[in-house]
């Protein structure tokens, strides 16, 4: 039987490299969507390590499997094949209670489409994850107000998402991801709808969370400023990780970025 030694090594190698602990590890993750007769291979075997306290950016054209990869490493869907470890625990082994805890406390999600609850105010949207975590409503409210002020929406507390601009909704989504002080933030295009200045503010906010609190940040982005601030950049193409580089090794003036 032919043995893929790289794969085998990845499966058994202790997930600690560069002297840092590995907070998310995906090994040969595949995802196939079955649409009637047609099979779509969204991921064709993605392997990556994400280290604690790192600011990782993922680049890739649309349809390359970015969002699917986010869903897999964020424990929002099960891979068709391969393993995902979060804090060195295989998430396939977790029951729905533990998965809910993970989604609630450990990971903060910023979705590309925001996914704010339309009928709730900004304040309610941000405090909802806190009530899922069992925080009492008064404390949750206070914390939500603080976080919303942090993202510059202190004056829009009682507005509903539909009354806000795209950029403001994105900031509510960012605020919500911070609700339960997660160790990992998964952000799908977090600055896509923001104007230049707010975009920079949000990048600074994420960078600050990383530096001061050691939050791990994984974001899919095309934003040059964000790419330059990140510790590491991964390229994904056609469901595979094709390149791994540090910002100082990348020529940002090349045509790929414009």
């Amino acid at each position, binding site marked *: 039987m032919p043995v893929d030694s790289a794969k085998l090594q990845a499966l058994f190698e202790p997930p600690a490299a560069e002297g840092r602990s590995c907070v998310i590890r995906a090994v040969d993750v595949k995802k196939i969507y079955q649409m009637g007769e047609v099979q779509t291979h969204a991921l064709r075997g993605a392997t990556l390590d994400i280290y604690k306290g790192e600011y990782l950016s993922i680049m890739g054209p649309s349809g390359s499997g970015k969002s699917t990869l986010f869903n897999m490493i964020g424990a*929002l869907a099960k891979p068709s094949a391969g393993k995902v470890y979060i804090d060195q625990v295989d998430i396939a082994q977790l029951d729905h209670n533990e998965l809910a805890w993970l989604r*609630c406390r450990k990971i903060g999600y910023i979705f590309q489409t925001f*996914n704010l609850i339309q*009928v709730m105010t900004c304040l309610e949207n941000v405090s909802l994850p806190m*009530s899922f975590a069992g925080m009492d409503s008064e404390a949750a409210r206070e914390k939500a107000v603080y976080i919303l002020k942090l993202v510059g929406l202190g004056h829009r507390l009682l507005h509903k998402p539909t009354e806000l601009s795209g950029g403001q909704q994105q900031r509510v989504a960012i605020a919500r991801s911070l609700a339960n002080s997660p160790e990992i933030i998964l952000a799908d295009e977090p600055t896509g709808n923001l104007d230049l200045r707010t975009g920079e503010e949000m990048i600074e906010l994420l960078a600050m969370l990383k530096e001061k609190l050691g939050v791990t940040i994984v974001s899919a982005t095309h934003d040059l400023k964000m790419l330059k601030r990140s510790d590491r950049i991964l390229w994904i193409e056609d469901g595979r990780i094709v390149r791994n580089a540090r910002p100082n090794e990348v020529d940002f003036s090349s045509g790929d970025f414009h």
Partner: protein
Amino acid sequence: MSRTIQEQIKLPLAIALEVVLQGIRIRFGRSLVTIMGVVLGIAFLMSILTSQAIKDGVQTEAAMRAELKRMLSFLTAETGAIRGKSLRLIAAGATDVREDRFLAVLRAEGATLVDVADEQTVATLVVGDGRLTTVPAGQQLLCFTRREQATSEARAISLDRELQPDEQERLARAAHRARVRSIWIIVISLLVTVIGISNAMLMSVTERFREIGTMKCLGALSAFIRQIFFIESSLVGLVGSIVGSVLGTLVAILIYAATYGFGLVVGALPVGGLVIYFAGSILAGIVLSIVAAIYPATFASRMVPAHALRSNV
């Protein structure tokens, strides 16, 4: 390898209730539409049940009035006009509704009912389910409201009427037909109610799939999602079926009052039966609402969060 992942806490029921009430308040218009779905279904059921009850009551009442009229004309055929006259009343045992009402009719016709015969007495009336122990003396006419009892000394007639066998058969057939028809109508109206309520509940759950997906991504447990929908659907069912029952009953009463006249309808209204229908309809409304919410709520709570987020309903 240390296990750093813990179990998500289960939120108490009070929080679920709070979320539901908040949800209903926020989406008041939409909740109202869902409730209206239940109201319409239950109102339809209740109006059918009430109309059936009223129709039966009105028919019984009309038959009773015809019977009383016939008894009166039987009596006056023997005694002549009874206005200003008196009738000696002997109660042999307990009287029934028909006899009570007949006595009221006699009083309304201007006759006085007395215990001891006087010169104005034109007849002796024997009512009740018992037997006459002592046959009253004298040559007076003896009228029995039930079967005539054998007497030797007096002329006696019976105001009761015995139905011919073919007439009885005809009545039994008509009653059977009416029963089958009313069962059919009630089954149909129940079906309409079931479909109406399921549709309302299904819509209100499925249009929130995305919201449910978001909640699951933020750490809501499947049990919590199910709980929310069950509480919400039972509240919607309760409010909807109370309003619906009242509405349905009122509409049925108004329609029949317009047809037969208010007095007859109110007189014919079977209050005890209506209370049972009321309780039944409310129970049906709540149970149907919950049952209709079970499938979509379970489906929604089991969805993989990433799929739920993509669904566009």
